[in-house]
């Protein structure tokens, strides 16, 4: 099925001749047409799924059932079925929450920040990344919701007027979390859905009358591609991107506040918000690659998800991985530099002497050392290496949260209360099951919705620029050709 080998990416050179600015690497290979793109992407939804889809889907559903069972057991019996204890009152639950919510950052990040920074290569990965975000946030949301002792009382978190005249504590980082995560999920859904509208219209228009057409038609809202709509639509999209960018940064910052605002040494650290955000981007991109490389291979999307995309993302992983590594080192330095021996002890116990140093070593080697492979270009272009590093990062980021949460609590302030955390089977299967849940949702997404933003990819084709034939004209700069209405003043005209 592979359409493009890693090394086979002929540079599109529509205009030979006089010396001029360098051409950019094309975002879609092999000069594909609009309808090829439509057919290729819609084909995934419209054709029968490959056997591999079923091979993945059935176990995913079973694993989802496992998670449902584990949560049912938890709720009926008590939080004690997990391995938590004094003083480790949070362990896998919140680790998994932060892990998933971290993964849930890449989608919005790709969509919003790369959009705002005009990174056009985002178009072929943003849809799947956004979907992944939603599913990851759904997985993440399960944990804080169900980790509480009395799930049936979680409505206490909602500011509803009540006869008891009692309200929430808005000073609690956990309540900030509730607002941040729910806002993030809602905004991500809106963002994703608005992006989907034109593509749903495409699917609607290709459908035969029937239930599918009703559903696609309903959700396409009657979209008819009018430019007066596109005009508002693009503004709305830009606004959402602008809103999502601080939001995505705030969400993981707020998650980090759960720890940073506490008094627990090892948690009480001002570096946490940027450290968490960088980690989230890091882990999120790794997860995007983990999903998109197989999808691209299986569904033959090599012309759309090109080595350039993978290369770009690998670079981001390298960058954020190094930021994360810097943060790890900085924590130690600050603990030393603070001259607070308690703080220093905490980090010594975390990394050198404590009972869970193994987790620290996993974290450090997976997150800091593994991505260093990406300094070497051929590694960034070898999909096996990329997949390997991404897997390392996925695991490493889980260990990072485990180190921060569980191993810190294991060595709390009063040594008399020290205890080592041990996970139970319920802990493990609950977490394992959420992968099934995540995969199930993602596979359903592949099955029913366009995995790549059709309209957006078409928009970045060279022929989609009304001035694309102006290439090579003297004095016409690449920026001008990228075409923004306000700036669309050809140099020659000015001259």
């Amino acid at each position, binding site marked *: 099925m592979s359409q493009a080998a890693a090394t086979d990416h002929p540079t599109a050179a529509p205009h030979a001749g006089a010396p001029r600015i360098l051409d950019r690497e094309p975002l879609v290979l092999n000069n594909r047409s609009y309808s090829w793109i439509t057919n290729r992407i819609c084909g995934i939804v419209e054709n029968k799924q490959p056997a591999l889809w079923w091979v993945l889907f059935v176990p995913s559903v079973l694993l989802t059932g496992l998670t449902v069972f584990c949560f049912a057991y938890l709720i009926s019996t008590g939080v*004690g079925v997990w391995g938590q*204890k004094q003083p480790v009152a949070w362990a896998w639950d919140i680790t998994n929450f932060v892990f998933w919510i971290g993964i849930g950052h890449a989608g919005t990040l790709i969509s919003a920040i790369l959009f705002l920074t005009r990174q056009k290569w985002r178009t072929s990965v943003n849809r799947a990344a956004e979907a992944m975000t939603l599913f990851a946030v759904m997985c993440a949301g399960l944990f804080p919701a169900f980790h509480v002792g*009395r799930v049936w009382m979680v409505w206490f978190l909602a500011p509803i007027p009540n006869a008891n005249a009692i309200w929430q504590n808005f000073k*609690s980082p956990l309540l900030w979390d509730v607002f941040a995560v729910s806002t993030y999920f809602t905004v991500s859904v809106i963002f994703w859905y608005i992006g989907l509208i034109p593509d749903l219209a495409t699917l609607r228009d290709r459908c035969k009358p029937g239930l599918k057409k009703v559903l696609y038609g309903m959700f396409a809202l009657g979209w008819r591609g009018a430019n007066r709509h596109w005009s508002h639509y693009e503004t709305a999209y830009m606004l959402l991107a602008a809103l999502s960018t601080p939001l995505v940064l705030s969400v993981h910052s707020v998650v980090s506040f759960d720890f940073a605002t506490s008094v627990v040494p090892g948690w009480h650290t001002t570096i946490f918000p940027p450290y968490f955000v960088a980690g989230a981007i890091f882990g999120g991109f790794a997860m995007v690659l983990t999903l998109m490389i197989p999808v691209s291979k299986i569904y033959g999307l090599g012309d759309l998800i090109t080595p350039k995309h993978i290369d770009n993302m690998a670079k981001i992983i390298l960058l954020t991985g190094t930021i994360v590594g810097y943060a790890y080192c900085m924590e130690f330095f600050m603990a030393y530099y603070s001259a607070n021996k308690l703080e220093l002890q905490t980090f010594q116990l975390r990394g050198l*002497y404590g009972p869970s140093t193994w987790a620290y070593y996993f974290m450090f080697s997976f997150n800091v050392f593994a991505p260093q492979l990406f300094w070497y270009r051929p590694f960034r272009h070898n999909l096996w290496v990329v997949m390997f590093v991404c897997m390392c990062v996925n695991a490493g980021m889980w260990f990072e949260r485990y180190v921060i949460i569980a191993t810190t609590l294991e060595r709390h302030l009063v040594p008399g209360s020290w205890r080592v955390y041990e996970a139970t089977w319920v802990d493990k299967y609950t977490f394992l099951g959420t992968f099934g849940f995540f995969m199930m949702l993602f596979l359903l997404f592949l099955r029913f919705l366009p995995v790549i933003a059709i309209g957006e990819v078409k928009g970045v084709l060279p022929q989609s620029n009304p001035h694309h034939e102006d290439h090579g004209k003297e004095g016409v700069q690449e920026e001008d050709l990228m075409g923004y209405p306000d700036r669309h003043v050809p140099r020659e005209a000015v001259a």
Partner: protein
Amino acid sequence: MKRIWNHPAEPQTGKRYWRSTAELERRSEFLDKLGVEFPAGDTLTDEERENSRRDFLKLMGASTALMGLAACRRPLTNILPYTDHVEWVVPGRPLLYATAMPTANGATPVVAVTHEGRPTHLQGNPLHPLSGGLDAFAQASVLDLYDPQRSQSPLIKGKAASWEQANQALAAVAESAKKDAGASLAIVVGKTHSPTLHRLLGELKGALPQARLFGYEAIGSEGRDAAQVAVYGAGIQTFVRFSKALRVLTLDCDFLGLDPVAGEALKHFTKQRAKNAPGGEMNRLYALENRYTLTGGMADHRKPLAASLIPAAAAVIAEALGDTSAKSLADSAPAALKEWLAPAIRDLIDHKGKALVLAGSRYGAEVHALVASINQALGAHGSTIELRQSAGEAQLGDTAALGAALASGSVKTLVALTPSNILFDAPASVTSAIEEKGVELVHLGHLANTSARQAALHLPAAHYLESWGDVRAADGTYSVVQPMIQPLYDGASALEVVLALLGRKTLGPVQATADAPAPEDAAHQAVRDTFAIVAKRFDEEKWNHTLRDGFLKGSAYPKAAVEVNTAVASALAGKAKPASAPTAEQLEVVLVPDAGVFDGRYIGNAWLQEAPDPVTKLSWDNAAWIGSATFRALGLKEGQIVKVNVNGAELKLPAIEAPGHVSHSVTIPLGYGEKGLGFVGSDSNNKGRGFNAYPLRKAAGEYILAGAQIEVTGEFYELAMTQEHNSMEGRALYREATLDTFNKTPDFVVKTGMDSHIPQNISFYKGQIGRKSETNPEGFDYEKKHQWGMTIDLSKCVGCTACVIACQSENNIPVVGKDQVRKGRLMQWIRMDRYFASSTWGEQNAKRDDVMIEPTVEQLENAEMVQQPVACQQCESAPCETVCPVNATVHTDDGLNAMAYNRCIGTRYCANNCPYTARRFNWFDYNKRPLDELYLGPLSSKDKTGVRESVQLQKNPNVTVRMRGVIEKCTYCVQRLEAAKILQKQKQRDSKDFRVPTDSVKVACQAACPADAIVFGDLADAKSAVNKAKASPRNYSLLKYIGTQPRTSYLARLRNPNPAMPGAETIAAWSAHQI
């Protein structure tokens, strides 16, 4: 909007609008019968009375269970008032009764708190001359009353029988005894101080002159008793005056823990250890012991010394004081011991008349004879040891005599009234004789244990809270034991059994006919008769005063002018053989009582089982304590099973490393290993909890067994330790200094750790911290509110865990079981942190930034042990509060860190953010589910141990019983505070005087503390004791630099080392080096 709900009257058929089926059941079973338990008995017919008591527990349980059944919008709830009013009872207010708990050491004066007839909590009796808190056993004894595994019906040859049959069997015993004037009858009682029991035994002896009386306690004090009779004379009781003792040396006498001596309450000892200004005298304690005990932890100088060498130590001291009767023994003492003892002896001599030497009660008569001689030489008699004359005690044979009598075959019937489990814990000489000679055993006991199951007749014993009795305290003060509740299972007391043997009483439920009122209770009458003797004549008013105060004023034993018989002492001491120190090949095994179950009698008490051993922190089990050097030399791991061979007996049990334990010595607590006692006593499937070490001894009085071998197996046993980490890691949590340091720098405590260089906290606002004033407008209002605060004096705190149990009793804290303790889910609100520290650790840490320094074996053996109770510190700036998303924990205007269980959703964030780890989470429905089926959740069996309704009767009605999924923690006994404030409101009425009288409210741990270490009160009341305590220069806050501003603070420990002692300079040195 008028809605009339017609809850129809019963009986009613057809659909009931507001009711569930459960409530239907409730009406037919519950309502008909429940009510009759409450009204005063005399309106009931006898049949009803019988039924009501039988079903009492079941019905009460049903009532509690049904309260949760709020299926409908408006479930029917009934109010069932008393039919006839009950004297003194004000529904909703606790009623306090003074009584006394009989123990082997005499009366423990208690005040029982009862709610509508249910005793729920015990406190010390502050009026009593020996008042001073309660120990853990007494504190927990109230739970024994409600123990679901209590023996509930008589057993005849192990089969349940009716009381009628039991009475017949007992009558037959009395009958056959009469035939041979009692020659075939032997009665064995525990060590008792009940004048009535002694009197009745005397009467029995009069009626059956051939009958034989014996005394037997599983862990007795045969050596001491024998020596005392020999040296002081019969009936002479020693009474130790700690308040007069400035120098105390103990030879393995854990007088602060499990080996109490007859004497003043502990607070008189600890009082002299707390100095709040430089200067003044402080007592000094030297301790020699093979293992750490609480006494050793409190000692100023402690030397780990094999128990086999304790007699030699006594001989060395005696020799130095001029008694050379045990010269060969003294000569056998190692040089190091002599060297260590020399300055100590000099110190004792320098304080003649103020010095005191104590020896462990389980040592032989020769040791006690030596100690008597030493005390005589030190001028202790008459000053630190008073001698008093008791009278009227029946002559009891000892265990050896009992064995001999049984072996002779002349005894046909043995009536065992001792609290010990005689067939389980007695030496083989006794048990095999009973078996071989076919002796009929009549057994009285709380539990259906081995003795009960194998006895010809077993009678369920009545708890001391449900029967009449009396007891003398250590100083002889006479107390009446009065019942708080009718016997839940119709049990009989020892008094009643003797009365039955005398033909004066029928046991079991009160038998009265329809036309005749119930007969006067014979036990009650017997006690009144004794009272008449003790008080010279019966005076109703005096009797009532005795009942009210809990003791009879002026009834102490008279002082005796006794000459110490030094000749006998020397003779006894002269019999001592030279001692030899244990070696790696010839270890010694030391059998000691267990801090949880004592000799096994508290094996059914879940509070005591779960309260950790104060030294090893082991709960729910016993294990072999092995000193670090031996432990490591054997290559052992925690919980690894070892095989101990001694005396021809073999015992497999897990080993734990015990810092401070001497080498080549193994300490094994007794009392565990009984089977068939249900979940608490014998674990799931009755497979037995812990390991039975009784078979290791061959005779009573054998507690130190020399020549043991130890074999390491590859098996492991899971132990539930409540604390896994022994080192403080240099964190300045616990602070101490020598008296000398204190005199030079009284504020040493604020110079320890980071306290002196905490950066100023510059905040946007001041916040609710400190006292409200013009410059601090947000602070706490000291004018219009109470401001609660607490101090814990570490100079006084022994670490006995009485506070832990008092808290559990007062605050309805659930027991979680061994498995949950292993998982670190102990619910007790007070955590008794026990650390080992040594001066070298501190110095090493100060020099290096590295923290994790493994101590050497020598350091471990000589480590100091410190005890620190930690509960919620009630921070003014509490980190737990701000993180709760639902406002379930907020601050009150009287300075409490409030916890609203019904608002809590259980995020556990507060538990994480508590710097003191003081918050507990209900991981499971500990109050609802059987503890061995917690993981089955709703599928667990409803009728299993752990959910028994009887335990629900113990619950304090003023404290919410928490459900699963909520956080709980120390509340400063807020129910007591609120009750005190409301009581004051009842007095205040239309005045402004809202403040409760100074120090009138006591929290449960404070009331329990036998060392008076805990002071609680109103900070806003200038006269309060807590204000004075906080003014001490030793006052410090835990983790002060975090800025939590706790309301609970600690007073640093002072130690008073003798500069001439070896290693004196290292004492308390570690504390100064902390971070």
